């Protein structure tokens, strides 16, 4: 699946997009965050405050318990500040 990062998550992780293949026991957004946070210091930093990071599955906002099975694109970003 494709993972996208925006705003300061993109900067901390050092990329805006990557392909990942998480193990089968990673079933929802919360577990995916835990798994990604282990991938290096940039990731750990980006996901340090779990409460503040927002997610979208296939371009729809998703909560921590949202299942990721079948998702093709998952995005992580800070709370939005447009308008």
């Amino acid at each position, binding site marked *: 699946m494709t993972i996208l990062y*925006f*705003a300061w998550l993109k900067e901390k992780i050092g990329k805006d997009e990557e392909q990942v293949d998480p193990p089968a026991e990673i079933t929802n957004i919360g577990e995916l965050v835990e798994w990604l946070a282990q991938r290096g210091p940039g990731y750990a930093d980006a996901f340090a405050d779990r409460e503040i990071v927002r997610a*979208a599955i296939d371009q729809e906002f998703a909560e921590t318990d949202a299942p990721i099975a079948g998702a093709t694109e998952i995005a992580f*970003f800070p*709370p*939005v*500040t*447009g*308008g």
Partner: protein
Amino acid sequence: MIRVQTEDFDVSKEIKALTQGKTHIGGVATFVGLVRDMAGGRSIDTMTLDHYPGMTEKMLAKIEAEAVERWNLDASLIIHRYGPLSPGDQIVLTITASAHREAAFEANEFLMDWLKTKAPFWKREGGKDGDRWVEAKASDNDAAARWSR
């Protein structure tokens, strides 16, 4: 209608295009958001807007459809810019047109409140002391919450 673009926009032209030939419209409310030169006591020279292409268009269309349905609007438009901007530049335009002014006003406030909390844009402000990502404001969440039903 929604548009996500780097180019500036002309409010008059958009109002005319939107209301042309629809003479049952009595009121057109408009909001334009501008880049401010100050933020949290800090002087701002530049602002850059990042967004999530694809999801942005989806969310704007959803937000607009919700407003059209709730207030039975005759016409509406959201334009949101992205990329590098400067103080005084136009960022966002919302237009809501209805037979009656109350619906136009209320729908416009709704659009702006929802844009602020549901559209995947992120602002980065640059000043003498470097660049900073803008933090979301609790007041925007409060403003959006009043439309919950």
